[in-house]
């Protein structure tokens, strides 16, 4: 077999042996023929190409002589054929590297379209490996130029296609450097820019992504006079809109896979992020031993607390330890999570911090469920001011979740059983000096060289000893060292030392009981603070008013109240950051927030209070949140939903702080805030929302108007209902209805009351009541212009009708949903509408349609990040797939639904999913697994006092017990049958009757068995939209 390599030094092999080919025109003839492998090229054409400048004088025998030499070099039988006044090279085109590369370009592009990403990645890599050096170096004629250009284009195309495939495969983070290099060499290739921008975005570098867009815009504009193409512009818009679609095909694909194939093993990769650990902005200095010690302790212990004074570097060490573990230990499948507790003031806020960080939907029970499900490491940071609350919660968590590990940082131990302490000492002088040096470099100044040197002085002579003395004076506390180093831009070491000495002497109080180190840190913070401009000092005050960091806009608002103009805010933040007094957090969505370290925040609060500016700052903070709240509900119900939900998530701690302040200073404002964020809490599944609303309402007393009061009650009712607290929910709606009754002219309020009550009674299975209420609400809404409310109400109506099995009412309600959907851009409602259409299709026994709708709904929920909704829809999809005849696929979907519910700690949903899972497993003959799933569901239902399909789960267990010969099974089935008859639960009736029929048959009571079977068959008519004949394991006659 002949192989010819033209890209790089000419290389010819025949059956693996390298052949020596003469250079010059002989080699060029080979290149020319190889590029058109298997094709006869006319002799005149060859002469024209190879001897272009003297073609007319070149005799045919010159070409002939080169051919002869080539034939001699290539051996016998000769692959160089002479046909019809021309020559051809007899070779498989794929064995000519240049031809193979060109083929690979077209093939990989087609494969990419077919989403064969792994194959594309490999094919492109193989093709690119053929580029061993210069292209066609053996061809010197002009004819070769077009081939060179073509092959260079092919190389870039292969790069681009390969990058695209790798990006889809989730390798975006690894592509940034090679893409940077690629756009450098191919700056006009917009596809490469698109990939680079997308890769930066997916790596959480949104600002860089937008800057890169500006770069390509400049390049195209200045060099070609062109604007970026529509795809690049669209990507920029997606970034600005934080469009989740830009997050990556591999994530979306996993969700979309359900649509066509049902969940597969690849769905397992579709998990939320497993860590929120920030990248350390600077290298950790001198903590290697401690890092190793923490790693070893966490290998064997479940609770490790890093104890030490403020500013000693506990947080940085804990984050570094977490990152180290993340890279070296793969057992924490539940992730490693940093929970900052510096803003928490009570046990509820500690719990909130954990729930929000882990993205759990629910309260403590949900958190426990989530932690039980997967081994997880929690890093609880800054525990000292809520140490009792943390200790109690940690004890409960460790008791409930055997695979949980906790790494805490605190100035005092948690003091609970099993805690292992690691006391973090200050840095020794060598490490402290190294840290000082490093930070000096960070602040743009090399190590100061002369103690007395002025700014920028470079006189010579080492001042290592002066720095060492300074670091010792700062007690080796990293934070104090950072603050001092941040001043080296304008002060010499001698000046820093002298000024600090003065301050230490001034503050030295032999009678003080405060530990020396704490005084050193406080003095250093105070020293750094005193050297600030007044605006910058106020910047610290403003930041200290925020509990969970602040956005630029929020700070502008509070700073304005402190008499610093908005235009100065960004300068203030820049200077504070340059002096190491401020932490800048960049979120994965590109948002930037500003935060103070705990010690600095405490100091800033003290001086703000001393200055008498505490009240104006906190009032402005609350007013800011009220302002955001005012547009939040409308925003969450619009196409800009994701943005408003992100704000609500980010401001959680600030909202709590503002509500606490308002409770004693401005209760009506507090209610405005709670009501404004209420709907967002519903969409986010934030169960504490109800508590916040009711707390704000209680604080406001009689000072609020009926509308606000009723709205708060209705929102709280919804949240309580969605978490299973149905009695509380009904009580809130009843209270709201009383307000509505007092204001009979308020049609909108009355309609909302009925609609919300419908939502709650549907949770109780009171479908007919739900239908009546939604019909009444719809009548009232008809007199108002409330398209969103109409749509929500129509969805409740459809759900109630489907639940009741009323196809006529369901048709009407679904038509109404479609009607109002046109006027809504709310993604959350839209995905619910899709699910309702699926449920309706199931009711009509159009199971394939049901699968299609529910697949679409689940995939969209996945893409939009509605994790709770997704779990619910997957559960419905799994059932529909079974009804469509595919039990194996249905089983996989239900297992996925349960796993997703566990991941978000939605115990109610997990229990519901397990009931269906148990039913399907039983139908598949996998009784032990069925019993396990049903028992887990029953266990939760017992604890919760019931739940959706609890009776079905109990019935299936009783049926299995009956089959196993347990004596009490028959009585339990009778009781369940009786209850089911009263509530109209046809599915339970069918299962109970089938099981009783089986028992009667076994007992020889044929008449009773026949009667039960007849009754079961009769009731199956009403249950067919819910279960199938395959589920009736006891009816297999």
């Amino acid at each position, binding site marked *: 077999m002949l192989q010819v390599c033209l890209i790089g030094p000419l290389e010819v092999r025949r059956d693996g042996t390298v052949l020596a080919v003469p250079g010059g025109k002989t080699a060029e003839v080979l290149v020319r023929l190889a590029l058109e492998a298997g094709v006869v090229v006319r002799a005149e054409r060859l002469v024209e190409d190879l001897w272009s400048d003297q073609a007319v004088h070149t005799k045919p025998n010159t070409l002939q002589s080169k051919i002869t030499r080539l034939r001699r070099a290539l051996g016998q039988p000769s692959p160089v054929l002479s046909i019809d006044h021309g020559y051809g090279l007899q070779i498989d085109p794929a064995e000519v590297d240049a031809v193979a590369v060109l083929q690979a370009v077209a093939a990989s592009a087609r494969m990419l379209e077919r989403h064969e990403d792994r194959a594309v990645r490999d094919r492109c890599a193989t093709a690119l490996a053929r580029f061993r050096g210069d292209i066609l170096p053996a061809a010197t004629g002009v004819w070769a130029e077009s081939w060179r250009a073509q092959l260079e284009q092919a190389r870039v195309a292969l790069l681009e296609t390969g990058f695209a495939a790798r990006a889809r495969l989730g390798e975006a983070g690894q592509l940034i450097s090679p893409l940077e290099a690629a756009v450098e060499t191919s700056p006009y290739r917009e596809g490469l820019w698109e990939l680079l921008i997308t890769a930066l975005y997916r790596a959480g570098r949104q600002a860089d992504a937008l800057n890169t867009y500006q770069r390509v815009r400049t390049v195209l504009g200045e060099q070609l006079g062109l604007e970026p193409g529509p795809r690049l512009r669209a990507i920029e818009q997606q970034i600005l809109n934080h469009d989740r679609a830009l997050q990556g095909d591999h994530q979306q694909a996993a969700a979309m896979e359900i649509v066509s194939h049902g969940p597969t093993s690849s769905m397992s990769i579709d998990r939320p992020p497993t860590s929120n650990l920030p990248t350390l902005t600077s290298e950790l200095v001198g903590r290697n031993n401690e890092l190793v010690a923490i790693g070893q302790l966490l290998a064997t212990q479940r609770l490790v607390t890093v104890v030490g004074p403020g500013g000693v570097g506990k947080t940085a060490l804990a984050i570094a330890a977490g990152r180290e573990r993340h890279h070296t230990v793969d057992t924490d499948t539940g992730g490693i999570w940093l929970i900052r507790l510096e803003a928490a003031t009570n046990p509820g806020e500690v719990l909130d911090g954990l729930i929000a960080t882990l993205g759990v939907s629910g309260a403590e029970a949900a958190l426990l469920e989530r932690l039980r499900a997967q081994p997880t490491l929690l890093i609880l940071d800054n525990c000292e001011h809520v140490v009792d609350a943390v200790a109690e919660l940690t004890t409960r968590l460790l008791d409930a979740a055997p695979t949980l590990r906790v790494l805490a940082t605190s100035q005092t131990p948690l003091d609970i059983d099993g805690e292992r302490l690691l006391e973090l000492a200050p840095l020794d002088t060598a490490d402290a000096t190294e840290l000082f040096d490093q930070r000096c470099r960070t602040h743009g100044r090399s190590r100061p060289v002369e103690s007395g040197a002025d700014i920028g002085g470079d006189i010579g002579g080492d001042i290592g000893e002066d720095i060492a003395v300074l670091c010792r004076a700062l007690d080796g506390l990293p934070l104090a060292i950072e603050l001092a180093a941040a001043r080296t831009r304008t*002060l010499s070491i001698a000046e820093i030392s002298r000024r600090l000495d003065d301050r230490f002497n001034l503050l030295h109080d032999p009678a003080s009981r405060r530990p020396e180190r704490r005084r050193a840190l406080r003095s250093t913070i105070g020293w750094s603070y005193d050297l600030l401009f007044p605006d910058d000092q106020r910047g610290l005050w403003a930041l200290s008013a925020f509990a969970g960091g602040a956005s630029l806009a929020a700070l502008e608002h509070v700073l304005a109240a402190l008499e610093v103009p908005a235009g100065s805010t960004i*300068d203030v933040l820049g200077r504070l950051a340059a002096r190491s007094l401020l932490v800048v957090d960049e979120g994965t969505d590109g948002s930037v927030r500003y935060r103070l370290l705990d010690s600095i925040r405490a100091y800033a609060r003290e001086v703000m209070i001393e200055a008498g500016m505490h009240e104006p700052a906190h009032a402005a903070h609350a007013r800011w949140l009220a302002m955001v709240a005012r547009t939040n509900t409308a925003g969450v119900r619009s196409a800009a939903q994701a943005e408003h939900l992100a704000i609500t998530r980010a401001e959680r701690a600030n909202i709590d702080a503002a509500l606490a302040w308002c409770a004693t200073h401005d209760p009506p404002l507090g209610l405005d805030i709670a009501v404004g964020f209420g709907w967002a809490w519903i969409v986010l599944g934030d169960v504490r929302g109800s508590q916040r609303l009711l707390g704000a309402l209680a604080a406001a007393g009689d000072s609020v108007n009926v509308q606000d009061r009723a709205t708060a009650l209705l929102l709280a009712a919804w949240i309580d209902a969605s978490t299973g607290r149905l009695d509380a929910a009904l009580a809130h709606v009843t209270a709201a209805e009383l307000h509505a009754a007092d204001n009979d002219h308020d049609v909108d309020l009355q309609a909302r009351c009925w609609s919300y009550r419908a939502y709650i009674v549907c949770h109780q299975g009171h479908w007919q009541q739900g239908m009546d209420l939604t019909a009444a609400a719809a009548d009232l809404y008809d007199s108002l212009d409330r398209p969103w409310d109409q749509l929500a109400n129509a969805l409740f109506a459809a759900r109630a009708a489907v639940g009741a099995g009323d196809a006529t009412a369901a048709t009407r309600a679904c038509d109404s949903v479609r009607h109002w959907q046109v006027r809504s851009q709310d993604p959350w409602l839209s995905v619910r509408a899709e699910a309702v259409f699926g449920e309706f299709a199931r009711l009509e026994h159009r199971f394939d349609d049901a699968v299609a709708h529910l697949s679409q709904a689940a995939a969209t929920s996945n893409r939009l990040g509605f994790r709770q909704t997704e779990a619910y829809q997957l559960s419905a999809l799994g059932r529909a797939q079974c009804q469509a005849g595919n039990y194996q696929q249905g089983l996989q979907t239900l297992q996925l639904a349960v796993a997703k519910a566990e991941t978000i700690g939605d115990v109610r949903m997990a229990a519901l999913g397990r009931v269906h899972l148990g039913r399907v497993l039983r139908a598949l003959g996998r009784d032990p697994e069925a019993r396990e799933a049903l028992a887990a569901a029953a266990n939760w239902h017992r604890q919760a006092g019931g739940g959706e399909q609890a009776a079905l789960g109990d019935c299936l267990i009783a049926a299995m017990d009956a089959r196993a010969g347990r004596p009490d099974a028959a009585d339990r089935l009778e009781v369940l049958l009786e209850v089911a008859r009263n509530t109209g639960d046809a599915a339970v009736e069918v299962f109970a009757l089938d099981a009783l029929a089986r028992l009667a048959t076994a007992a020889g009571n044929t008449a009773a068995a026949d009667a039960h079977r007849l009754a079961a068959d009769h009731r199956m008519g009403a249950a067919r939209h819910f279960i199938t004949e395959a589920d009736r394991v006891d009816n297999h006659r």
Partner: protein
Amino acid sequence: MSDEPTNVDTVIRRVISGDSSARCWIMERADTVRDPRLLILVALIDRRPARIDRALKACETTGERQVVAITAAHLRGDGQLVDALARDHLVDHPDSVLVAWIASGATGSLGQ
């Protein structure tokens, strides 16, 4: 010199260089000028806190507000703070003649 000079820098330089006519000119207009740098100059000559408040209100940029802060520290006699703030300010505004002058301690001649 007109009532509102077109070149504030010139006025500042003339006052710094000890031009008594420039000093008189600015003090005659102490209650009417609006440029923050001139108001700072007035405060330095007059040494009255109210002048500082007025200068601060007239400021439009962060840099101007910094000069007011430095002036206020100077008038309080807090030399160490003036020194530190002036160094910070001059890093970003190396051409700030007024701050360099205040930091040099040469303003003492103003009141004479």
